[in-house]
């Protein structure tokens, strides 16, 4: 790999990966770096997986603007990159007569933002979602909302970028900027990383939770800070609980509230709560948090029982404190999408929390426009291919398609993950994909293996065996997410070296 590029993108979450993919259309040498061992390992990896309609963002904010624009881009994006996306609409559900008037406020806000919304009766909501709280008095339906698979979307975007010539370096952490003149610190010419120095004319800060630290290294927006806001979630067993829709409670001042939602992978999701913390690595689930989300979920679906739970996880929202300039009201949690004037060579993104997933394609598009307006000559490559072909997903096929696939490649006939019916064929394909999946968690993100009710108890030994075989490694070297998270410590009958 060369060490000189036109553009370096820091962070391979959904924003960084889509930015790389959009920029890969042009005749540019691009490097995408990620400090973790896989893409979508930060904020993108743990959220509600929703594509928001945008009725509730503060009008005039970048959040509102990129939400609406981003929402409209997901159909084409999911068609080209071939990942699961379902525009099935979202609901805000009023429980009891006292919550019903709140729907009118949201309805009006939606209309002001140009987002289609419709208020439906309690009876209609109960018809559409039979398990909903019988005291439901009405709901606000937003038909442009939807659900997606953020792991698949990010992986597909990054793979498409790589297929179109972007260099991806995992386990490569940003340390500092390199300046044309270290004393003046005006012109960025590259970055120092844990894997060496890389040079470029432009650096895009898509560092998510760490975006504040990156921009401070450039001397930009010293007052901007990211405060991680942790959200805890439960995943429920689709064999026990059928949820057809995206169900929000009536929001509070600080949060969209604890939702219950259908997902593209089938197992319903409940959460998140919102807890400000100071450690950007802290994805603990806590007794208090779990109690809180359970209470919230039961408000919408009172018949849930704890026996329905198959998984528990937490994600972090990279909440920032950037003031909104275009808002009529005082609002200090807007996105940052800018080329700062005090330095040259930086495209600065920050505070990309909800609706960041929805907005990500619009943010990526805006990065392209910012570069163009800064005089960057963007020449479309004739070889650019926007299509990232999806790999077969056994459980989503019809019986006839399954039979054909198994006949063509018997490895698709061997089920490794019993709960989610993930086959050896899918695992091997993920290991040998354009971005090779070399850890258990990387395979999980690509196949949904181990996310079901046994939580990997049956598949883990077999996945280790397959990874070791395909990578020519010893099973002792196979890890969950990177070095330091190996599953096994030694062979039996061997003396332990203290």
């Amino acid at each position: 790999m060369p060490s000189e590029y036109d553009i370096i993108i820091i962070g391979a979450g959904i924003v960084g990966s889509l930015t790389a993919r959009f920029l890969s259309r042009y005749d540019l040498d691009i490097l995408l770096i990620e400090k973790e061992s896989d893409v979508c390992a930060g904020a993108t990896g743990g959220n509600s997986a929703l594509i928001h309609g945008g009725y509730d963002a503060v009008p005039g904010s970048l959040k509102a603007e990129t939400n609406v624009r981003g929402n409209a881009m997901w159909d084409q994006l999911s068609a080209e990159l071939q990942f699961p996306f379902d525009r099935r609409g979202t609901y805000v559900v009023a429980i009891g007569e006292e919550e019903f008037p709140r729907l009118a406020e949201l309805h009006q806000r939606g209309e002001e933002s140009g987002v289609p919304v419709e208020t439906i009766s309690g009876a209609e909501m109960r018809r559409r979602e039979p398990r909903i709280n019988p005291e439901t008095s009405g709901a606000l339906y937003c038909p442009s909302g939807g659900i997606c698979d953020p792991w698949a979307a990010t992986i597909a975007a990054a793979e498409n970028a790589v297929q179109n010539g972007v260099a991806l370096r995992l386990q490569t952490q940003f340390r500092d900027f390199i300046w044309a003149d270290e004393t003046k610190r005006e012109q960025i010419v590259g970055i120092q990383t844990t894997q060496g120095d890389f040079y470029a004319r432009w650096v895009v800060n898509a560092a998510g939770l760490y975006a504040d630290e990156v921009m401070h290294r450039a001397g930009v927006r010293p007052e901007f800070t990211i405060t991680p806001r942790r959200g805890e979630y439960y995943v429920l067993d689709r064999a026990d609980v059928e949820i057809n829709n995206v169900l929000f409670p009536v929001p509070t001042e600080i949060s969209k509230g604890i939702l219950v939602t259908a997902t593209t992978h089938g197992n319903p999701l409940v959460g998140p709560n919102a807890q400000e913390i100071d450690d950007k690595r802290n994805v603990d689930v806590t007794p208090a948090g779990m109690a809180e989300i359970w209470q919230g979920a039961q408000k919408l679906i009172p018949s849930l029982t704890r026996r329905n739970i198959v998984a528990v996880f937490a994600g972090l929202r990279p909440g920032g404190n950037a003031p909104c300039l275009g808002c009529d009201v005082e609002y200090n949690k807007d996105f940052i999408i800018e080329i700062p004037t005090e330095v040259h060579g930086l495209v600065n993104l920050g505070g990309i929390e909800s609706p960041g997933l929805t907005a990500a394609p619009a943010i990526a598009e805006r990065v392209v426009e910012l570069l163009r307006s800064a005089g960057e000559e963007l020449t479309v490559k004739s070889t650019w291919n926007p299509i990232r072909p999806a790999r077969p997903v056994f459980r989503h096929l019809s019986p006839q398609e399954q039979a054909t696939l198994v006949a063509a490649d018997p490895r698709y006939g061997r089920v490794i993950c019993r709960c989610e019916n993930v086959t050896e064929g899918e695992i091997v394909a993920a290991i040998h994909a354009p971005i090779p999946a070399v850890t258990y968690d990387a395979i999980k993100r690509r196949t949904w293996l181990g996310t079901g009710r046994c939580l990997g108890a049956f598949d883990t030994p077999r996945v280790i065996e397959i990874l070791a075989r395909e990578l020519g490694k010893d099973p002792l070297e196979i890890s969950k997410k990177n070095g330091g998270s190996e599953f096994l410590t030694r062979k039996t009958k061997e003396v332990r070296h203290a």
Partner: protein
Amino acid sequence: MRKQLKSNYEVVVIGSGPGGLAAAIAAKKAGADDVLIIERDLELGGILLQCIHNGFGMEIFGEDLPGPSYAQHYINAVQALGIETLLDTMVLDITRDRRIYATGARSGYLDLQAAAIVLAMGCRERTRAQIQLPGPRPAGVYTAGTAQRWVNVEGYMPGERFVILGSGDIGMIMARRITFEGGKVERVLEILPYLSGLNRNYVQCLQDFDIPLQLRHTVKRIIGNDRVEAIEIAQVDEHWNYIAGSEELIPADTLLLSVGLIPENELSKQAGVQLDPLTAGPIVTDGFQTNVPGIFAAGNVVHVYDLVDWVTKAGLVAGRHAAQYAQQLTHQVGERKYVPTASGKNVRYVVPHQVAPESLTEDTITLQLRVTHPLEEPVRVLVHDGENLITRKLKRYARPGEMLEIPLRGRDYDAVRKAQELRVSVVPKG
């Protein structure tokens, strides 16, 4: 060359653990010609193959066998009887009219019709999510059964310093096994005030190796982002709340979970089989037929057993009835009169859920039950219909971890036939 599979079978057994093997053998012996076992793993035997410790077979063989030897006895019988087997094959779907869709790397995609099906998928282990353990999700948190597979079958150690949560049998057996392999088991924790596994396993696996067991204790937090670094434990009160000040930090690289087993009934649900929320297994008759005519269930898929011998016995009953059904010898549920069983004093559940009095003209019916809490004194197991005592049995004690049995015999036929219900209670002898 594999023998060409037929597309129709009299009895198809799903799973080849002790329940499935016994069901297939009994079905064949009861006259079913075409019997097929479908097994998802590479070999017959189910989870017994990784249970290399002894303790199997005392009831049936009067011998203390390791798991694989116990299984081999029945595998030999399966082969001797010419029962067909399909290994490395996963059943994807079962319909109410007993069509089976399955797939395997060697067997390809399959579509079979069975006259009768015996569900014998066994059970799976409860996970950290189901008990909602706080903390991040590093490597080093495993179920005891997964660790058992690594150590006993694949020859790898999943860690060096262990905390084991739950005093289930697999957890205690793994505590000893890890000790044999040079690992250190720092602690076994049980949230309940009493043991959840068999007492003999406590004596032979923990006491004999000086492994400390702490009752009324649980994991308060897992620590470590990449790999487990330590486990914070705490004592709990009677409502399972942590007692402030009782916390202790135990350096460890592995947390093993032995916190209960859940019958695996996802396929059963797909076939429309009704489940009992208490056992998490199908509602069954004394012949182990479910509410779906022609679909039977045997072993841990019905409710979790603590002795394999009893799983085998249940499999034999289910297999015989499945063969009879396949040969049209039995009437369907609904046409026959059934008497429901019920849980009385101190009883958590009773299996089977319905008893056909006519069965008593052919065979003994064994009612199996678990108590709600330990009764550490001589007890009577009683079967009542209202005020009428039908049968009773004396036991030295009753513990939730040890299943109880009480037989109904031919002599009880008249009483059972007249009964409105069979209410089973366990009361101190007094």
